[in-house]
């Protein structure tokens, strides 16, 4: 599923990891919130777009654009405003690392 070493590196780079122990643990909890609409492991489901395996930069840019209302949406603007810059980077890196 997830190459855990590169995931850990991505998470550290994303700045979310307060404790090293988390690297061995699950997805960042911020990313867990996305699974209720974007399918199992972000694989996409019905009208929920696939997030898994997409470029981290692309995902982070989309989220920042929603947050700044540069991109229209029915709901993602309201969602993206709840997360910090570090969380957006970590969530994008997490989904990008899923193969």
């Amino acid at each position, binding site marked *: 599923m997830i190459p855990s070493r590169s995931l850990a590196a991505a998470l550290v780079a994303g700045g979310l990891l307060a404790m090293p122990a988390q690297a061995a643990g699950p997805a960042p909890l911020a990313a867990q*919130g996305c*699974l*209720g*609409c974007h399918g199992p492991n972000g694989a996409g489901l*019905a*009208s929920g777009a696939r997030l898994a395996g997409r470029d981290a930069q692309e995902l982070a840019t989309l989220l920042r654009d929603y947050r700044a209302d540069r991109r229209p949406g029915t709901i993602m603007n*309201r969602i993206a*405003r709840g997360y910090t810059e570090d969380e957006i980077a970590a969530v994008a890196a997490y989904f990008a690392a899923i193969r």
Partner: protein
Amino acid sequence: MPITRRAALGASLAALAAPALSRAQGAARLLVIGGGFGGASAARFARTQYPELQVTLVEPLTRFVTCPYGNLLLGGYRQIGDITHSYDGLRAAGIRILHDWAEGIDAAGKRVRLRGGETLAYDKLILSPGIAIRYGALPGYDEAAAQALPHAWVPGDGSQTLLLRRQLEAMEDGGVVGISIPANPFRCPPGPYERISMIAAYLKRHKPRSKVLALDAKDAFSKQGLFQDGWKALYGDMVEWVPASKDGKVARVDPAAKVFETEFGERHRLAVGNVIPPQSAARIVLDSGLAAQTGWAEVDPRTLASRAAPDIHIIGDANNGAPMPKSGYIANSTAKQAVASAVAALRGEAPPEAVYFNTCYSHVGDDYGISIVGIFRPGPNGFVEVPNSGGVSPRGDLPEQRRLEAIHADTWYASITRDMFG
């Protein structure tokens, strides 16, 4: 509740202890009570993310009927099979599932007694038993009354939701469907208003001379402007909502006569009556001494650990998570933080940073969906909503927004139930 009862339980557990306890060598034992939105999410998250855990789930039902989308069944948009889920996926994931009731928790001894007689020892307990209806809190509304005036607010085996649906089908055109709505806090703040909408949708199609009379113990409610815009546009004067300040508070019900009587004595005779009753945390929480005076459990906002028993994480509707709503999505979100925190504690580590997520979609009618989003973090004295985030769908004449949200709502249901049950 009674200390005597707990002491008695402790003693009987001590007598039973050793032979009844089973433990795989070395594996930490995570016990989950309740296989609904919180419990199923917790069990599956624990099993898939922390394979070293031994996960046991106790849930009396062999099939779980969701509250979410139950209102769509009332509207005729879903069948019972569409909202019923089996535990096969969780079992296949390696979770031990016991279809039994947890009857008593010995927090000090870290043991749970089941109705079937078995006693389970745990290292960490996740408690997600949902709500109990406070029968008797609304005069006239006891367990027997629920057969005449269904609540359809606790999933059970789905029989309450089906009973309400059958009553709607059997009523004559021209009748009044009454809905009694409680004061805060209660399960699913927008739920009663989605129910008004879905019943109105059914009546408009099949019994157009009928109406919905919603009698509310409050003066304001979730997504109020959006709901009222939708009712006006779709149902005209078929829907009447009466706030507490206009004598909307139901003070007594008469199940035999199907009458709702308000605070100031007005008696509404109904063709069908739906009572959404006052609620508390589920019985097991009250009986184990884990609830505060309010009837809900107090928890640490960072870990969901009970303020009364640190090895028990209480998630879902049973805790006092205000200002977070009592929703399926919050149950799912708090489940994951509770499991991650329990594992961190077992490893002697600090809990991870918490961020809790909620979305509640509501269907107002055909191709007409609305939503509310809330993102929360732990604060010094409880849960705090992230400023300038979340909120409700925009108001106004926005048919494309409404059409898309109805579609995305269906995606949410499919996606969250996959996250729970696999």
